[in-house]
């Protein structure tokens, strides 16, 4: 054994001793602490049995309260799930979500924004507790805030948002919304909206249980939005087809080119969002396309022949024998697009329906192309027919024949029963009259008619009604009561009665058509 071995042995002994000393000191300290605690306890008066029972009662009360609150939470979740799965209207759903959150957590304000998939923006849908109009506020899907929220499933307090780099840029908007808590409305990867809640009454912070409740609510709301979107999509398609069916029936009935073209423009502008364009017809004699009518554009003016379709210029419908919709989103001028739908009947070129702009929110997609292909297929045949009739000046059925036949029948019945009847011609005028408005008006007029009354003739701006077994005063009374209920429309009417005003159809028609009738408003 050398001196080094002896020294390292001594070192090890010393370390061991020092460790043991530390352990002893630590043990002593623990003993002192325990002793002090015991002394403190001994100083306090001892709890009696009744104190312990009171404590227990308090604990039971708290647990019961907690339990009851949880039951209310679950009941509310159950009720809202039931409600959300039974409604398909986003606005109603959002209103329910807001009211439930506000009522469940005593929050005085709630605002909801929902993703508009076409605009790719979160737009204002509903607010409670805030009087200010919030429609001008919107959040683009690509905003940092929205990207941030899209990755969160749990509600976030306002402070957390404001502490982010993008927070300050939304501070003003969030203040107007009175936001204290942002609840993402999302399920899986689909971020469908945001519920902004204000502070709880008395500025009590949101509890963990509140946040859990809101997370579940956000998930339910997201599923409900998805369902409602699917429903709205189907509903819109059904409505589109129904409008298309109604108007194509009218277009097919019309033998006047002007009426047919106006109906077409009305169809595509009011029903399908075209906001700017032209109906261009093919002139067989000149073998060229000519602008028949423009809407919301002035140049090139109607009547002008076009060389636009020359080969190589934009998309060339002449090289499009299949009649597909040609679309180019290359900007023409001022943001206009080129959306051209060939009008083809059989294998005959009829013309083009050119649209240069759609209303905001309409995206040119496969659906809109299909809809416009259907519109074009409905428009082309009546155009060919009207062109054919006007070129060959073919005899058309006298429109009065129909009226004559009906009036003849009524006169015969009147003679059989010994009762008279009243005929009224109603003419209406509104500066912005459209086919849809005209149909609404006719429906309103139908609403004041008896089952036995007959609407025998209706034009774009006039109609004729026969009131069997009625007196002239009764009819004028009905019409005079009805007319003041209409707004933004001028109505004039004439009445003639059989047999007082004439015992022949000609005499009656003379009264109501030429203006010799009794009343005119």
């Amino acid at each position, binding site marked *: 054994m050398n001196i080094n071995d002896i020294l390292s042995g001594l070192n090890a002994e010393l370390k061991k001793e020092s460790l043991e000393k530390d352990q002893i000191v630590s043990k002593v300290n623990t003993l002192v602490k325990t002793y002090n605690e015991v002394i403190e306890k001994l100083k306090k008066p001892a709890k009696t049995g009744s104190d312990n029972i009171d404590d227990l009662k308090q604990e039971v009360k708290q647990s019961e309260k907690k339990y009851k609150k949880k039951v209310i939470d679950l009941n*509310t979740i159950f009720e809202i799930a039931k409600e959300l799965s039974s409604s398909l209207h986003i606005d109603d759903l959002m209103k*329910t979500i*807001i009211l*439930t959150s506000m009522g469940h957590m005593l929050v*005085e304000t709630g605002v909801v924004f929902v993703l508009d998939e076409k605009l790719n923006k979160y737009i204002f849908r509903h607010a*409670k507790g805030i*009087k200010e109009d919030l429609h001008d506020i919107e959040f683009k899907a690509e905003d940092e805030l929205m990207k941030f929220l899209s990755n969160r499933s749990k509600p976030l307090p306002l402070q957390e948002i404001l502490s982010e780099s993008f927070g300050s840029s939304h501070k003003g908007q969030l203040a107007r919304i009175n936001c204290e808590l942002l609840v993402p409305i999302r399920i899986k990867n689909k971020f469908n909206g945001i519920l902004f809640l204000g502070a709880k009454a008395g500025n009590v912070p949101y509890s963990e249980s509140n946040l859990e409740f809101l997370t579940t609510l956000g998930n339910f709301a997201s599923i409900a939005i998805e369902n409602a979107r699917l429903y709205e999509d189907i509903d819109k398609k059904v409505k589109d087809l129904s409008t298309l069916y109604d108007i194509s029936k009218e277009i097919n009935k019309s033998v006047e080119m002007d009426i047919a073209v106006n109906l077409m423009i009305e169809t595509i502008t009011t029903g399908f969002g075209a906001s700017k364009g032209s109906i261009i017809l093919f002139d067989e004699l000149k073998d060229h396309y000519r602008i028949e009518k423009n809407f919301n554009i002035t140049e090139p003016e109607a009547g002008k022949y076009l060389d636009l379709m020359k080969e190589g210029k934009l998309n060339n419908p002449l090289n499009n024998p299949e009649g597909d919709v040609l679309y180019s989103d290359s900007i023409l001028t001022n943001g206009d697009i080129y959306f051209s739908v060939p009008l083809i009947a059989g294998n005959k070129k009829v013309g083009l329906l050119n649209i240069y702009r759609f209303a905001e929110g309409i995206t040119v997609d496969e659906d809109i192309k299909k809809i416009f292909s259907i519109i074009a297929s409905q428009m082309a045949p009546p155009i060919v027919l009207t062109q054919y009739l006007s070129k060959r000046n073919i005899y058309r059925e006298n429109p009065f024949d129909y009226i004559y036949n009906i009036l003849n029948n009524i006169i015969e019945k009147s003679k059989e029963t010994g009762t008279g009847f009243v005929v009224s011609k109603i003419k209406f005028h509104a500066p912005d009259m459209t086919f849809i408005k005209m149909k609404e008006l006719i429906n309103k007029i139908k609403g004041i008619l008896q089952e036995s009354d007959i609407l025998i003739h209706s034009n774009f701006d006039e109609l004729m009604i026969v009131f069997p077994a009625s007196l002239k005063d009764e009819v004028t009374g009905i019409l005079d009561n009805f007319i003041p209920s209409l707004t933004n429309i001028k109505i004039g009417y004439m009445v003639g009665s059989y047999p007082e005003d004439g015992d022949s159809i000609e005499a009656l028609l003379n009264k109501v058509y030429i203006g010799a009738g009794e009343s005119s408003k």
Partner: protein
Amino acid sequence: MPDLKVESLPMTDVPDGIIIQPQGFIDTTTAPEIEKFIESALSQKKYKIAVDLKDVDFISSAGWGVFVSEIRDIRENNGDLTLVNMVPDVYDVYELMEFSSILKSFDSIEDAINYYKAI
């Protein structure tokens, strides 16, 4: 048809007051019905609203939400919305969910009217 009937009555001696009397359940389906009555009262500038709940057996969170959501506007116009004659089950929830911290309640219409006369 919703399981809720609502009527409104003028409040004696309180010209800008109104008593709303719902009857039935106030849940997510029927809450809009009572909301309409409150909104109508507000549009007539009647900001002192007593909701008589003697015939209401249940109020869901959406129903409470209707009352809470209007309270800010009402109080900004020197009015108040109070709940009167709550049945024990409804009162239990009112207490449990701490609605008492935001909505006043009274045991009788007379008490509510006296309160409105004083404010």
